[in-house]
């Protein structure tokens, strides 16, 4: 009996030690929440208050098995010439010279806020401002020279940074064409050091500069506050939004589905493609209900896709977890499976 008592004591001690380490890690992880992980450099320029914020680690993306597939697709569509022309025109190789990219969109519920959105129905979220920050190997003088071949470029000095406004362009014959360059209302761009380019609406780019230079709050703080320590900021790609604003009612919202306050979709490219979608519900009860609804959809999908082994394997890899008011759906998909699914989507008849 003495021996068994020792063995039992040893086992209890091991379990207590194991749980103690976990508890210390749990307490410690709350402490390091504010310090790590460091957000991507391009996120520093994204202002707080954006409805949708996203990030893509282009280096990881272009070093993944996807690159080969894209290059083949470009070649198949005969677009490799366009890519070569872009490289020649700008001196930039999109597959090698862009490292990471962050973007933010501010939406408005009131179309009357913006004349360009007058046709949108009242109450439907419409993009109001946008901004992109790209880190890469830029040769700013050559890019500006190239830009001036196609557009008049006005400049403005804002807090020590030059903002460029391309306002007009010429057609091939050299005649003036009044159409503004780019998307939306007078986009602007600015070079920040030798490796960062920010683009966006005239007003928004000023906000971006204020944010990056520490004069205004960043979206990173809001993301950390929303999503806590288990952040996705360093995943290969992610997008985070408040659904009722950012997704314009695309997500199903109704009596059966508890409202989602924030939604984040992120992915990592490792041996497989690991995807996560996370929703924040208003409270614990809503989160439990939301998890049930998601589980129901996944189970229904599993039953309906019995014939397609790839879809079934994807659905089998789905994990749904609920922690407090957060519901997380994660899945892991091998690259080969994605390729087959992509081919199947292009040619659904092949399956029959």
């Amino acid at each position, binding site marked *: 009996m003495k021996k068994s*008592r020792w063995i039992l004591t040893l086992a209890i001690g*091991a379990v207590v030690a194991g749980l103690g380490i976990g508890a210390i890690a749990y307490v410690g992880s709350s402490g390091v929440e504010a310090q790590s992980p460091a957000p991507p450099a391009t996120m520093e320029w994204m202002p707080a208050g954006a409805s949708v914020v996203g990030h893509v680690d282009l280096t990881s993306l272009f070093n993944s098995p996807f690159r080969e597939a894209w290059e083949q697709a470009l070649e198949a569509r005969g677009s490799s010439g366009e890519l070569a022309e872009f490289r020649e025109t700008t001196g930039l190789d999109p597959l090698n010279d862009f490292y990471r990219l962050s973007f933010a969109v501010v939406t408005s519920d009131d179309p009357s806020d913006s004349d360009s959105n007058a046709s949108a129905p009242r109450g439907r979220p419409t993009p109001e401002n946008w901004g992109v920050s790209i880190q890469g190997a830029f040769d700013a003088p050559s890019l500006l020279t190239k830009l001036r071949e196609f557009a008049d470029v006005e400049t403005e000095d804002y807090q020590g940074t030059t903002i460029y406004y391309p306002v007009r362009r010429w057609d091939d014959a050299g005649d003036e064409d009044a159409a503004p360059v780019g998307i939306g209302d007078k986009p602007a761009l600015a070079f920040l050091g030798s490796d960062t380019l920010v683009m966006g609406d005239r007003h928004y780019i000023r906000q971006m500069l204020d944010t990056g230079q520490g004069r205004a709050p960043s979206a990173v703080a809001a993301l950390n506050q929303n999503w806590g320590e288990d952040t996705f900021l360093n995943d290969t790609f992610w997008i985070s939004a408040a659904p009722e604003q950012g997704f314009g009612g695309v997500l199903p919202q109704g009596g059966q589905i508890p409202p989602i306050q924030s939604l984040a979709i992120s992915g990592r490219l490792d041996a497989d493609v690991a995807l996560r979608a996370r929703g924040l519900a208003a409270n614990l009860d809503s989160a439990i209900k939301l998890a049930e609804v998601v589980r129901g959809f996944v*189970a229904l999908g599993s039953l309906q896709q019995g014939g397609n082994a790839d879809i079934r394997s994807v659905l089998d890899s789905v994990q749904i977890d609920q922690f407090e008011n957060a519901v997380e759906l994660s899945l892991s998909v091998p690259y080969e499976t994605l390729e087959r699914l992509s081919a199947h989507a292009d040619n659904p008849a092949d399956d029959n």
Partner: protein
Amino acid sequence: MTARIPLVAQWSFSQLLFSPRTAGMAILATTPVLMALVYRAAVALELAAQTSSFGVFSILTAAVSLPFVAPMLTLFYASGVVIDDAEAGTLHYFLTRPFARRDLLVGKMLGNLMIVMFLFVPPFVLCYYLTLAGSGWQELGSRFPTLVRDLMAASLGIFAYSGLFSLAGTVLKRPLLFGLFFVFGWQAAASIVPGAIRYLTVTHYMHSLMPHESFQSSLAGLIGQRSSGLEAVVALLAIGTATHALAVWIFTKKEL
């Protein structure tokens, strides 16, 4: 509780610890650990993604540890609480000792619970660290509440199973067969049958407490809602307490 109960429990635990049955049960209990080791090897050989570590732990918990290992361990010990001694011819010897029948059975059931927890909990915690070790300190910490919740679900589930199988061991001549039917027949079917029948299973309440998902519980989720956490805890405690008490009452009244 009389002073005899801990004595019987300790004696029962030491007898079970060095029995051949425990050697076999140890293999069953360490199955998730072996699977976690295979996963770690696959990560080291770059055959599996490090990012899916928590997913692997979830699968091992939702598909192996809680629905299979926990009930099997409990079944193999609790079902023999009376029948083992009856078959070995030692029961009458115990009944001549100077302590009450109630103390004997409660002590033995406590010893059974101790050995089941001894075999289940350490490998389960080890499995958590093995699967998540490579994901970093922060991941270990942020997932820790899940481990605690799993352990709570497992402990309550084992308590409820222990009561049921002890009761079967006290009443039936073939309690092992009943236990196998209950786990793999009744529970498997009842959890996917519409209506309130799933409330007559232990697995429904365990799934209600688990933060993970398995295919079977997803399917069950289509048919009916989970119980709330409080309901599940109360139900498991009630099942365990009632069945243990009933087993003791029957044992004290039974003609042996």
